[in-house]
């Protein structure tokens, strides 16, 4: 077990190093002096009761919320000073809690927009839908079980399919760090199973941070679990270790 006694000089070994991260909203510290490290190819699951600051942590990493103090280093680049789109281009992908897709566009167009080419005004004006784009869209669509629905307007997809589409939109960006906020919320049992299978397939060669409440699902996928409570880490380690932790049982699992 890697103890949390880590010095700055060792940060290079981690894909993501969060240190002393604090954010306060009008004096309320949603995230309070938080430090954690994510390894290469690791699946980290963050759990915790409502209001523990889980989504805020993801917001901080992807630049949606600005940190009051602390640092977030991604492959030795400081993210806290970067703009949102720069963070994405550096290799961080984020899936939102509610499926966030473009309802007025087709599945194909949704994926195409996320394809990392033509991201400037001029680039978008001159963007050509060439064979490479079509091939990649097709490939991702097959991965996310939507190959038959490429021409469908995204608004007509089911809730689960919308979640998959958004995962596909991240996949096509090929991020090194993928952050998923409750990817199976609101899914049926069969959809949940397929999603776990999907996640297990797409995590190769990348690190993943997942927020999830579904303990069965967490058990299926997590390498390591971080339990947040009131903006601080309550416990961290393997699923078994965390589940046995009396503090965790008291504030979260016991309920």
């Amino acid at each position, binding site marked *: 077990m890697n103890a949390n006694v880590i010095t700055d000089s060792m940060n290079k070994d981690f894909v993501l190093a969060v240190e002393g991260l604090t954010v306060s909203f009008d004096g309320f510290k949603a995230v309070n002096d938080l430090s954690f490290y994510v390894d290469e190819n690791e699946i980290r699951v963050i759990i915790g009761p409502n209001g523990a600051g889980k989504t805020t942590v993801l917001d901080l990493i992807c630049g949606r919320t600005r940190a009051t103090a602390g640092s977030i280093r991604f492959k030795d680049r400081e993210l806290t000073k970067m703009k949102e*789109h720069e963070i994405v*281009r550096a290799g961080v*992908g984020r899936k939102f809690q509610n499926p966030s897709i473009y309802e007025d566009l*087709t599945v194909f167009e949704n994926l195409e927009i996320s394809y990392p080419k033509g991201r400037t005004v001029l680039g978008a004006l001159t963007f050509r839908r060439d064979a490479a784009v079509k091939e990649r869209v*097709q490939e991702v669509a097959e991965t996310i079980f939507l190959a038959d629905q490429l*021409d*469908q307007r995204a608004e007509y997809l089911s809730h*689960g399919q919308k979640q998959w589409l958004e995962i596909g939109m991240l996949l096509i960006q090929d991020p090194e760090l993928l952050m998923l906020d409750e990817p199976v919320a609101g899914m049926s049992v069969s959809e949940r199973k397929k999603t776990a299978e999907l996640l297990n397939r797409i995590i190769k060669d990348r690190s993943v941070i997942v927020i999830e409440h579904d303990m069965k699902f967490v058990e299926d996928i997590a390498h390591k679990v971080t339990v947040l409570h009131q903006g601080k880490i309550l416990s961290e380690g393997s699923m078994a270790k965390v589940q046995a932790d009396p503090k965790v049982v008291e504030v979260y699992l016991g309920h």
Partner: protein
Amino acid sequence: MTTPAPTSGRTFFLRRQDMIGIAILAVLLMVVLPLTLDNFRLQFVGKYLTYAFVALGLALCWGYAGILSLGQGVFFGLGGYCMAMFLKLEASSVENTKIQTTPGIPDFMDWNQITALPWFWEPFRSFGFTTLAVVAVPALFALIIGFALFKRRVGGVYFAIITQALAAIMTILIIGQQGYTGGINGITDLRTLHGWDIRTDSAKTILYFVCVGLLIACILLAYYVKSSKLGRLLVAMRDKEDRVRFSGYDVSSFKIFVFCLAASLSAIGGAMFTLQVGFMSPSFVGIVPSIEMVIYTAVGGRLSILGAVYGTLVVNWAKTSFSESFPELWLFGLGGLFIAVVLIFPNGLAGLWQTYVAPRLGPLFGGQARRAAPPPASEPVAPAVAE
């Protein structure tokens, strides 16, 4: 394996029904109307068409990108004033103005005790500079506004209110700076373009055709933008701005682009207005004309490029015929029309066409639903785990 998206089969940026739509509009404006209307009425249509440029810009900016600007009159005016300055300078030759205290400057300057041409009027002696300025000055102005607002993520209602305030400010500025702008009367008594008298009937007919030609060119440009990836990005931004941002795009730069494009389109309309009508005044800059322009777009259907043109023609035709008979009732009519559009047919004329007319005309006119229809209810929501 499935077939690739059908849209990818399109090699040119226009779909078949778009080409037919543009061709019909071109025939209507270039053949049907000139043959059926007398000169007087045709000049009216020419004037309406200059507003269609604004509506076209609004269709992109408001309809597609969701940015409602209530200040497009500012850009229409800037384009119009640029052209008016050139024409006024040509009309104010020393010979024409020898009775003035200072000959060779525009008459209204002389009346306001200005004795030398202001520096910013000087470049407008060149027609080349003027044509460039017609497009560039409003775009630059829009760039500054867009940069200031979109980079700070000002949007929605706040953006609309600020642009409306700009329209008011611009009007006050023009009226207040009489000596430089001609004040409330505007810049009048425009006569010739490189010696070609623009006041004659034949000149007005030629200018009508120039205006139609430019409009068609701008429509093609709008279609190009709409069908490019940028067009789809605008729709995506309107839907889920954050998702676009977190897909690696600098959202503000796309908003700035479309706002500048809409500004330039409006300005081309403004310049054509000045040429055809023969003057430019602050009454085309302020809040009321700016809102009227939004109504044209709404009536036409804000998601339709061609709809914007038809909306402009219909509303203006109604305005002219209505206010000839009941001048005092027109504003109520306009207000009623706007309410009707919002409540009864939110997609405007284009929406009515697509819902009621096109399905009867067959696929050539886009009669078949352009995108796949919703799946039948019986279709399973997600494939069951059969394996």
